[in-house]
């Protein structure tokens, strides 16, 4: 089972929910931090890393002795990542989307596939929990291929919890696609609500069941709950603002370590998610039968 934790707005508590849920569940769980631009979950899990893998993407390298400057590569490339100017062919590797078009089209077979480093993946453990995250290289623009690489390490026999990046564009989609459930973490403020609506739009587009965690639930106003009610999005957990929670978070401490009574609440949250996933599965089954 894959549970992806997203929000729209940043800083609403995705990482808090992802890490505490993962640690509460204990063994047999994988936590994948897919916020590869700014991965933070390791700061709370403190895993022992055992493995680091550099992740690259294919980019064109031109053998100028074979190139006859026909310009077909520049013609096919939609991303202006390779151009023929005068008597040279110039690949701009940082613009390349690795589609392979230039290599395929080159009649002289003058282009071979080199590599651009996207970032790295680190794999580690804490107690029974398997921890994996991606770290985008600073200066690299494209997060989705690295996110997909992190996701490829998900194991079907485990409960996989994904900490997604903020926003609603391609990196978020790459972190939610194929999940069994999306847990949306938000706060009852106008910014939280506005961005939540966008996130719900993305989740619905993907056809994944979702539920809500309301963080700092006693700040802000009622519009979030009204929206959740009218859209039929279940509120699965509320975390009130508590200075003690905020302070322990600032130090990199887990909520379930500082206030052990939260462990039970995260286990209940997991139970409610599994019930909803089961229910969604049944309704898909019954709608297929009809």
């Amino acid at each position, binding site marked *: 089972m894959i549970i992806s934790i997203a929000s*729209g*707005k*940043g*800083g*609403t508590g995705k*990482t808090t929910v992802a890490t505490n849920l993962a640690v509460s569940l204990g063994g047999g769980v994988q936590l994948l931090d897919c*916020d590869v*631009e*700014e991965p*933070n979950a390791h*700061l*709370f899990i403190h895993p022992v890393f055992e493995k680091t893998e550099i992740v690259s993407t294919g980019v064109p390298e031109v053998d100028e002795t074979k190139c006859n400057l026909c310009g077909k590569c520049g013609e*096919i490339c*939609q*991303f202006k990542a390779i151009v023929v100017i005068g008597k040279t062919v110039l690949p701009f590797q940082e613009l390349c*989307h*690795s*589609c*392979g*078009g230039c290599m*395929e*089209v080159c009649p002289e077979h003058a282009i071979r596939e080199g590599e651009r480093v996207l970032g790295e993946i680190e794999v580690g453990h804490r107690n029974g929990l398997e921890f994996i995250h991606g770290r*985008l290289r*600073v*200066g*690299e*623009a*494209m*997060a989705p291929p690295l996110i997909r690489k992190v996701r490829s390490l998900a194991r079907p026999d485990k409960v996989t919890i994904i900490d997604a*990046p*903020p*926003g*609603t*564009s*391609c*990196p*978020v*989609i790459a972190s939610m*696609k194929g999940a069994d459930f999306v847990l949306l973490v938000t706060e009852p*403020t*106008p*910014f939280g609500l*506005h*961005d939540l609506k*966008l996130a719900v*739009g*993305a989740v619905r*587009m993907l056809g994944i069941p979702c539920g809500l965690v309301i963080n700092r639930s006693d*700040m*802000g*106003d009622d519009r979030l709950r009204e929206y959740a009610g009218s859209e039929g999005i279940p509120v699965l957990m509320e975390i009130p603002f508590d*200075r003690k929670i*905020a*302070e322990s*978070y*600032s*130090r*990199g401490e887990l909520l379930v370590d500082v206030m052990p009574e939260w462990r039970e609440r995260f286990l209940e949250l997991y139970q409610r998610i599994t019930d909803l996933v089961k229910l969604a599965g049944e309704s898909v089954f019954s709608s297929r039968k009809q």
Partner: protein
Amino acid sequence: MKELVIISGKGGTGKTSIVAAFASLAVNKVLSDADVDAADLHLIMNPQATERHDFQAGHSAVINLDKCTACGLCRDLCRYNAISEDYTVTRMDCEGCGVCVYFCPEKAVDFPLKTCGEWYLSETRFGPMVHARLGIAEENSGKLVTLVRQEARKVAEAKKLDLILTDGPPGIGCPVIASLGGASAALIVTEPTVAGRHDMERVAQLADFFRVPVMVCVNKADLNPDSARDIQHYAEQKGYAFLGAIPFDPVFTKAMVVGRTVIEYDNHTEAAAALRQIWQKVSSSIGLQAA
């Protein structure tokens, strides 16, 4: 003309509230919201759009099944697994590379331009604003950020304004890179948490990479004063201007709920005083005339 970009690395540190507060304090400026995939500044600015434009970028493959002979070449060549067994293209997976379009022997693949969102030119109580809305799950956020910033620059030139105040996106990826290039300075708004600190270091590195001068301020500083001091030391050590600390204050949320800036809501809070001080330092450090 100067452009100040507010970034943070980590989300939720208070970028947009602080940009809004600066909008209350700065004169002769245009606002631009470069957080195009979760734009929030308009919720405080209440902009009245005077112009609305489609944002078109990139193409998306569409297979004409009347012409398709199911030869399978496109499926072999597509590196994004965007073409299904029954030869439909999943728009969300299509990268717009055009390889299938180019190689299809039956010329059965159309390649229409995509409309990925909208952008707006607006008026607000604080002056003109350029903002946008990226379609849900769309790509090309970097291009839309570049467009918003270019349009804001045009407004600033036409109206002879001194400043472009840009609300940046979180992270360090494509839209952040698009927000930074050519800016006069980047102000990093961080928070005194392990995550805030970690993310600030990465986004500061990115700004260094693009040779944009970095300034740092800490929001919610009293949640962890030790960490706030560490951030100040880190900034000073790296040669970034440290502009000050803002206390944690529910006034940020209260002002947001009623759609006002923190300064408009109550000019006498400690947070408002801290923001005024930081704004003074920002404006003198980027060379703006005092209001």
